[in-house]
């Protein structure tokens, strides 16, 4: 019996194919979205259940009101659907839009569709691009950047005028000097690896600053230095930084140009090359400051086997556990930047450190207050910190 009914139903549905929903396009509107690039329009419309039936709709557009072209995909008509599309334009200007009703057997030609007047009326709009995105989140981001900038300049000025800005001494700093001293005693070189990221990375920059100070100390101790670089530009800069360090220490002749080496810009080739240096030249002290990835463990392990004193510092959280494990001393995250400020006493660095310390406290306060406010149902702080696209 059930089978029979299904068969009847099947016959019925195939004999009278779905004819779609009776549809007429209403309320067609074209708007330029807020904060857009000036090449986007939002087209929206409604369908009322009158008129000829249709299965789907598609939007056509024209920049001159003469020639029309399809844009966007075919949209199936469904109950309670809201019809909005975001249309990307090739050029600015005023664009006209129509919505075309389609049946599954409708011809695909734009002209034919328009002729059978199965299209809506026209609506047109002009995209307006924004020259500034003034949403709350964007404004607070801009405010944050300006605040950091202002704090930095403010403290730079104070530091330049001779005011001492306090930075606490971190244990890592003593470890560096001890390591250099040990290398001098043993007559073996110090290996310095400035990470494997580009020069633009702040960790690499911090590493270069520390390298400047370390090379001064090394020149004073008359020890040897090897710098192993993974990025050509970093090598260039390291070369100049070390040269300057030796010069400032009064030993410009002691600088060996072959000591700053470019190994390879491929991570593991670099790693293998640096491993080779550790194996063959047996440095007494290895210093790894900068941005490291997977090679951290191989380097630290090879150094460990060669009984080098190892000092590491990186802000790359994934690599920190291994440095902590295999190195004698590890600077965690921002401690690396703090050390570069402490060593160089550069007013600009000290001031950035001070500025970010202040923002950090502000973040702590914001989160505590924000949690209380959010729990009371007030989302003002959350909104202040949220950026929507």
């Amino acid at each position: 019996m059930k089978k029979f009914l299904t068969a009847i139903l099947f016959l019925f549905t195939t004999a009278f194919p779905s004819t779609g929903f009776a549809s007429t396009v209403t309320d067609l509107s074209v708007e330029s979205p807020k904060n857009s690039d000036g090449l986007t329009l939002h087209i929206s419309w409604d369908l009322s259940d009158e008129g000829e039936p249709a299965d789907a709709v598609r939007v056509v557009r024209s920049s001159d009101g003469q020639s029309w072209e399809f844009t966007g995909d075919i949209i199936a008509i469904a109950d309670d659907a809201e019809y909005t599309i975001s249309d990307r334009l090739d050029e600015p200007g005023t664009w006209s839009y129509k919505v075309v009703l389609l049946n599954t057997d409708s011809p695909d030609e734009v002209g034919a569709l328009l002729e059978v007047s199965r299209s809506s009326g026209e609506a047109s709009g002009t995209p307006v691009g924004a020259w500034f995105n003034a949403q709350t989140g964007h404004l607070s981001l801009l405010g944050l950047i300006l605040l950091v900038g202002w704090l930095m300049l403010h403290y730079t000025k104070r530091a330049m005028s001779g005011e001492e800005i306090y930075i606490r001494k971190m244990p890592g700093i003593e470890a560096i000097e001890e390591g250099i001293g040990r290398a001098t005693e043993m007559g073996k070189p110090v290996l310095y690896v400035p990470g494997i990221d580009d020069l633009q990375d702040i960790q690499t920059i911090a590493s270069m600053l520390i390298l400047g100070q370390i090379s001064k100390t090394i020149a004073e101790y008359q020890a040897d230095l090897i710098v192993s670089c993974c990025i050509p530009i970093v090598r260039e800069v390291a070369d100049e930084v070390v040269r300057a360090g030796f010069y400032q220490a009064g030993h410009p002749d002691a600088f060996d140009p072959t000591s700053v080496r470019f190994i390879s810009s491929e991570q593991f080739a670099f790693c293998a090359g640096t491993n080779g240096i550790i194996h063959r030249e047996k440095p007494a002290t290895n210093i790894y400051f900068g941005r490291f990835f997977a090679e951290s463990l191989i380097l630290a392990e090879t150094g460990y086997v060669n009984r080098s004193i190892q000092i590491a510092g990186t802000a790359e959280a994934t690599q920190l556990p291994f440095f902590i494990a295999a190195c004698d001393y590890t600077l965690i995250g921002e401690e690396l930047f703090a050390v570069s400020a402490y060593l160089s006493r550069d007013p600009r660095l000290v001031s950035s450190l001070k500025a970010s310390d202040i923002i950090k406290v502000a973040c702590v306060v914001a989160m505590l207050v924000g949690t209380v406010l959010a729990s009371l149902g007030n989302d003002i702080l959350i909104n202040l910190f949220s950026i929507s696209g």
Partner: protein
Amino acid sequence: MITLPLTSVLLTATPLTATHLTAGSLIGIWVSIFLTLAIFSFLYEDNPIYKLAEHIFLGISIAIGATEIYYGVFKPNLIDKLAEGRLLSIIPLILLVMLLLKMTKKFDYMAKVPIAFIVAAFAGVKLTGEANANLMTQVAQSMPNLPEVYREHGIWSWDADGAGVFSSIFLVLGLCACLLHFYFSAKQTKSMAVVSKIGIIVLMLSFGASFGYTVMGRISLAIGRAQELLGLDKPPIDVTITSGGDPINRMSLVRMISFGTLILVIVFLAVWQKRRTQSEE
């Protein structure tokens, strides 16, 4: 626990008809196995075959990188555009030439312009990205609505992996403690030292998770090598080596080559080690 027979787990693909293995592929399989074992031989000791493999790697990686960079950047973004006569593309060409002048002694100062350009471009791009995604969003997401959390999960919900008011408060306070641990411009008072200690504890739990995951990642990669050495990296097919010859299972062939090469590498290391000890004496 289900113990599956070896064949059904590993040899899931339908066997195809025997394909002919060209001499190139056969040599390729051997070279690939040899280089794999040569790198692994470093685990025994730094030795000549490792060094050979290492230097081949240095050379080939730079060459492949350069080739891909040529086809990925220089050709489409510079050369093709210049060839089309796009005048604006002359500027990056000039900047590029200035960068390459870095190699000369006389004009190396010219490179400062392109270096300044690229460093500033990265700095500007990263500045907004970091401030937005790593600061603003993370702070915004660390302000839980506690009554709502309580309604959803209570104080502690095992079903939701421990979500609840306790965890929400732990997150906010733990984050604050970590941030204050990285506060450098003040002498550490006793109370600050306590906060800092809490921060360190949270950080260590975080690094512990990192460690566990990293171990997993590294072992996964070694498994990948093992699969290849054991011929399990390709669907199980039969291959012929000489045209019209008897088909042989690819997996067995790879295993034979791997085993033979392993013996070869071990013999080499033994001889090399012996010679070295002799010469030291």
